[in-house]
Each structure stands twice: as structure tokens, then as C-alpha cells.
């Protein structure tokens, strides 16, 4: 297909995705004097899952044995798949870098007059990051989803192209010395707060460029929300008790992140939450801690502290899960020359291992991998000194499928079923795998050639989330044991911890590689 007009830009570093990781990457690269362009699918400042949440960060001062102890605890929960060096790197980077946002974020003092630099409210944080990036001279393209990476003849990355949803142009083309993917994880269009744009676009582009993935099986993660809402803020649920429709209290296993007991109960019927145990002072403070939580209840006409209310589970996929593009070196490279990865699009196995990093480690990873990718991208482009005029071939877009809803639902039936994901068996995974292959095939039967920007974007998103579902499922089949977020009802015991790598578009592949033995 042909677009009628194109916006063409040149940059030293192109960053795809303007959320937490992309913004820190942009600021870091621009501060070295590099020309930086951020291409964001939505609006840089409200983009990414952090924008509607409130990330804490893994934030430990270099005092005594504090860092060493924190790393030792994390290595234990990582179940053999963590990397102490990476943990040390992100702790140090986050501690040094995060307070610099005070130039644009209005920190408040706690009851002791102290500023807690690691805890930021999402909307204010992302607004501050956008402004800081603009003040550093970053060019921001809002409403500009990327659809394909551009490649040189030698297959190194030469920039990217995509569509514009709001400008006078239909298409944008950015030629860059280096490119950073910071497009986030994939929650398969569940109703997880702020995640509808997180369809795994970066993973699809990376696979196309030859990168591979790691830890995709660690994607079975579901969070409690008031039924039918997106409000996946977890704080008040730490005081919750749960009841079935008959009023019997559900037994909650230890370990706050494991919601499989709710999955079991929800399979039988409605589950109700009781928040009467939330202390009075916290109830009063809630509107100023997480302002979006009370408005949700208020608008549903529920007093959550005196009335039991129905809850449901929303899938977090690789967002609160772990898997993503495998980081191949200490510079956030992914094995493709000129391409770097930052934030949730990258596998967080080095810092979280087999379990979720939760908000704190994931935010520290997003910030740190963003900064590290930016420095590596700047160094690469200065080393290469390649002309941005070198001819590259623009991608041929495929025909899109007229009816995409059926494909989306087919993928969601597998990936957003808490039961299928929490209680995996070889046979359930093979069934999922077959359903996903059918969905993938249906996507390739496109017949619409002249599609507008929005329709082309939706097709690309659907293709990406279907591809991510296939890698998650193939990896879950390949890991025959239970480990961390991945639970197999038919688990075999495996002595040595290993990483499950995956990749491939036409046919997903997996490979098991032994984990690095800690020195």
C-alpha cells in the first residue's frame, strides 16, 4: 500500500515507546548531546502502565551490607535464574539517577520531613519525564505507532517506520544511527489498568529482526480488580478477605502474589471482597495515596469498607510477568546490531528470575535498562558513523484481515483464562498451542489491501499479541517443571535451573540453556 504523505526525520537515537523506560532512555541519550526522537503510540506523558499506577523503585543506598543483603534475598526468590551483577547494576543506577527527576516532579515530604525518592505517583511521574525529555531537546512524536524496523543491507537496524494517527502525515520514517525498543510488555488486551496499547509490538519487530526471547513461560500472573473494572491497584487488598457466593470465607495461601486460590473460586461462581479490615486512617488517606482507587468505588456506588463487592482477575501477561526479548550483553543489546531493548519489552530474568519483580524491581529495571540502552546506543552510533542517507527498503505491508475480533477473542480465551494459565499441563498447553496456531493462520488470510492508519495499527497489534501468546505457550510446554510464576500440574523434577529461550514467527521454537552458576 502507499501512503500519501510522509514525515521524514533523522536522529542519532530513535526510541520506540515513550513510557517509563523510553523516557529515561531519551533523557539519558539527549544529555550526551545526541539527537533523539521518541515515537510513541499514544501520548508520551500518559503512555505505559506506570502512568496510571504508582511505581515504587528498588532503591537502596550504598550503606553497609544493605545492597548485598537485598541481592542475596532476590537471588533466592529468583530460583536460580537471577544474575547478581545485573541486580547490583540496576540498584546503583536507580539510586544515582531517580532523584534527578526532582527537577520536574514535585516530591512531598513524609511525616518525618524526609523525601522518599523512590515512590512516585504515575501520572505526575510520566508528566515530569515528558517535560524533562522536551527540556533536554528530545523530539517527541505522539500518536505515532511504529510498524516496522528499517534494515541496512547487512541486516543492522537503520531506524523505523510507522503511521501517524493525528498529524497531517499518514506515515513517519525515522532514520537513526541506533534504535531502542521500549514498547512495554503484553497483557493480551486484558482490562489491566493502562495496558491496552501494550500488545507486544516490540517483540514482534524484534523477532522479525532476528532477536530471541527468554522466560516467556513466566507470564501467568493475574491481579484482583473490582469486577469489570481496570483498577488493578493492589495496596488496599493487602487487608482483604474473600468470600464465595454462599458467604464462606476463602482460605488465602501465604504469598501475597499468588491469586490462584481466587482463580479456583471464580471458576465455581462469584467471589466477594471484604475490605472492612482497612484501618480508619488509611481509609482517610487513600484519596491522596492512590486517587484513582476511591473514584472507582464511588462511581460504582459501592462503599468498599462496609459492603462486600464482587471481584474479578485481570491478566498481566509479560507486564507483571517476566519474559521478553533476551538481553544478550551488559549494554542492553539483543544480538541485533544497532538495536537495544529497555523496560518490560526485555526479559527481566536477570533481576527477577522466575518470579515477578513486582512494581519496585520492574520500575528500577525500566529506568536502568533505559539509561544503559541509551548510553550503548549513543556509543554505537558514534562508533559506526554511518550515513543516514544509505538506501534502505521500506517494508511491504501485508493485507489485513477484515474481521479481527474473532482472532483477538481466540487468543484471550487461552491467555486470559486464569485457570488455563495457573494450572498448566502438557495437554492443556497443547490445546492452547493448537488454538493459537489457528488464530495465527487466520491472521494471514487478509484480504483488505487499502487500510487506513488505524486499521493497519490494529492488525499489527493483533499479530503481535498472537505471536507473544505463541511464544509464551511454547515456552510453557518446554519447561516441564514448576518454577516461580510457571506452575505445571504435571511437573517433572528438574535438578539444574535453565532458561527457556524462544523465537520464530512462522513456527515458534524453544531451546533450554543452563543458567549461569553464581560465582
Amino acid at each position, binding site marked *: 500500500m502507499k501512503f500519501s504523505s510522509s514525515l521524514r526525520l533523522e536522529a542519532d537515537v530513535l526510541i520506540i515507546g515513550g513510557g517509563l523506560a523510553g523516557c529515561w532512555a531519551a533523557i539519558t541519550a539527549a544529555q550526551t548531546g545526541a539527537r533523539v526522537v521518541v515515537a510513541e503510540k499514544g501520548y508520551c506523558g*500518559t503512555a505505559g502502565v506506570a502512568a496510571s499506577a504508582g511505581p515504587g523503585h528498588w532503591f537502596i543506598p550504598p550503606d553497609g551490607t544493605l545492597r548485598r543483603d537485598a541481592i542475596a534475598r532476590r537471588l533466592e526468590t529468583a530460583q536460580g535464574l537471577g544474575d547478581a551483577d545485573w541486580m547490583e547494576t540496576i540498584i546503583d543506577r536507580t539510586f544515582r539517577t531517580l532523584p534527578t527527576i526532582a527537577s520536574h516532579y514535585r516530591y512531598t515530604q513524609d511525616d518525618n520531613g524526609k523525601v522518599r525518592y523512590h515512590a512516585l505517583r504515575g501520572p505526575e511521574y510520566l508528566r515530569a519525564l515528558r517535560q524533562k525529555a522536551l527540556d533536554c531537546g528530545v523530539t517527541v512524536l505522539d500518536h505515532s505507532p511504529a510498524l516496522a524496523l528499517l534494515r541496512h543491507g547487512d541486516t543492522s537496524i537503520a531506524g523505523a517506520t510507522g503511521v501517524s494517527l493525528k498529524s497531517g502525515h499518514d506515515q513517519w520514517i525515522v532514520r537513526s544511527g541506533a534504535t531502542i525498543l521500549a514498547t512495554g510488555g503484553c497483557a493480551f488486551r486484558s482490562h489491566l*489498568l493502562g495496558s*491496552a496499547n501494550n500488545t507486544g509490538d516490540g517483540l514482534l519487530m524484534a523477532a522479525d529482526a532476528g532477536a530471541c526471547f527468554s522466560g516467556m513461560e513466566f507470564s501467568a500472573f493475574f491481579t484482583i480488580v473490582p469486577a469489570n473494572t481496570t483498577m488493578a491497584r493492589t*495496596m488496599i487488598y*493487602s487487608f482483604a478477605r474473600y468470600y464465595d457466593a454462599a458467604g464462606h470465607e476463602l482460605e488465602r495461601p501465604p504469598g501475597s502474589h499468588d491469586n490462584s486460590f481466587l482463580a479456583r473460586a471464580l471458576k465455581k461462581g462469584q467471589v466477594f471482597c471484604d475490605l472492612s479490615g482497612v484501618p480508619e486512617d*488509611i481509609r482517610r488517606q487513600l484519596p491522596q495515596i492512590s486517587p484513582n482507587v476511591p473514584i472507582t468505588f*464511588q*462511581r460504582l456506588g459501592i462503599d468498599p469498607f462496609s459492603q462486600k463487592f464482587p471481584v474479578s482477575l485481570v491478566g498481566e501477561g509479560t507486564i507483571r510477568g517476566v519474559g521478553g526479548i533476551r538481553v544478550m550483553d551488559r549494554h542492553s543489546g539483543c544480538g541485533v546490531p544497532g538495536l537495544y531493548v529497555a523496560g518490560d519489552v526485555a526479559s527481566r530474568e536477570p533481576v527477577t528470575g522466575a518470579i515477578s519483580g513486582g512494581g519496585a524491581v520492574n520500575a528500577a529495571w525500566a529506568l536502568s535498562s533505559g539509561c544503559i540502552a541509551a548510553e550503548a546506543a549513543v556509543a554505537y552510533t558514534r562508533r559506526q558513523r554511518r550515513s543516514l542517507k544509505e538506501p534502505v527498503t521500506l517494508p511491504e505491508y501485508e493485507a489485513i484481515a477484515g474481521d479481527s475480533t474473532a482472532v483477538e477473542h481466540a487468543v484471550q480465551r487461552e491467555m486470559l483464562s486464569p485457570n488455563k494459565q495457573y494450572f498448566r499441563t502438557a495437554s492443556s498447553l497443547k490445546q492452547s498451542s493448537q488454538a493459537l496456531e489457528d488464530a495465527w493462520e487466520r491472521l494471514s488470510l487478509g484480504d483488505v489491501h487499502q487500510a487506513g492508519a488505524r486499521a493497519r495499527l490494529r492488525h499489527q497489534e493483533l499479530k503481535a499479541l498472537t505471536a507473544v501468546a505463541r511464544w509464551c505457550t511454547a515456552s510453557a510446554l518446554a519447561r516441564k517443571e514448576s518454577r516461580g510464576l510457571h506452575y505445571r500440574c504435571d511437573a517433572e523434577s528438574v535438578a539444574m535451573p535453565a532458561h527457556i529461550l524462544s523465537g520464530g514467527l512462522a513456527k515458534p521454537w524453544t531451546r533450554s540453556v543452563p543458567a549461569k552458576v553464581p560465582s
Partner: protein
Amino acid sequence: MIELIVETRCTACNICVEVCPRDVLSPREGQPPIIAYQVDCQTCFLCELYCKTDAIYVHPDATQAHPQNAEILEASGLLGEYRRNSGWDEWSVHEELRNQHWRMEDVFRRARSP
């Protein structure tokens, strides 16, 4: 999902069109934007936060539409609650609306302690 832009409050500044991460809204010359793609709304409430005249109402149900009536909404006091509780814009001078997000880790710690 986003349900209503209250016409009598909207100044057609189009900031909501700009900040919406899902491109749900379309601008109109001198008039309130149209909710052009309601089903694409991700129910993140962020448009409300950026609307200085509190003209937007997002219903928490992400699965189906709940059409709203402007007069009832005006009377409900629900408009602008998110922006006020966040202490944005004119509310930033109110000490009692100060950002207390830093309490979150203390709350988690308290829930864990017996």
C-alpha cells in the same frame, strides 16, 4: 469507558484529544471533541486528570457502556473528583490534598505485621 463530555463545561481546548493514549477522541472546530472510538477507551481516567474544567466523565466499567446524563452528573459531585484528589492545578495549594503516595510502602508493611 469514557461516557460523556459535558458540553456546558467544555472549552474545546482539546487537551483530552492530545493526552488520550488510545486516540479515542476527535476534535471539532470550536466545539467539544467527539467520543469517536468509545470501545477503544482503556478506562485509565487520565483524560479527566488533564481536563481543567472537569468536563469529562469516565465510568469504571471497562466491559460495557453506561450512558450518562449531564444534569445528574452535575448534581452528583463526581465530576473533577480525580483531579481534585490528585491536587492538580488550582488544588495544588491545598495542604490536605498533598500527594501522599509515599505512604504506600508503610501501608503494605502494616498489613504484613500481625
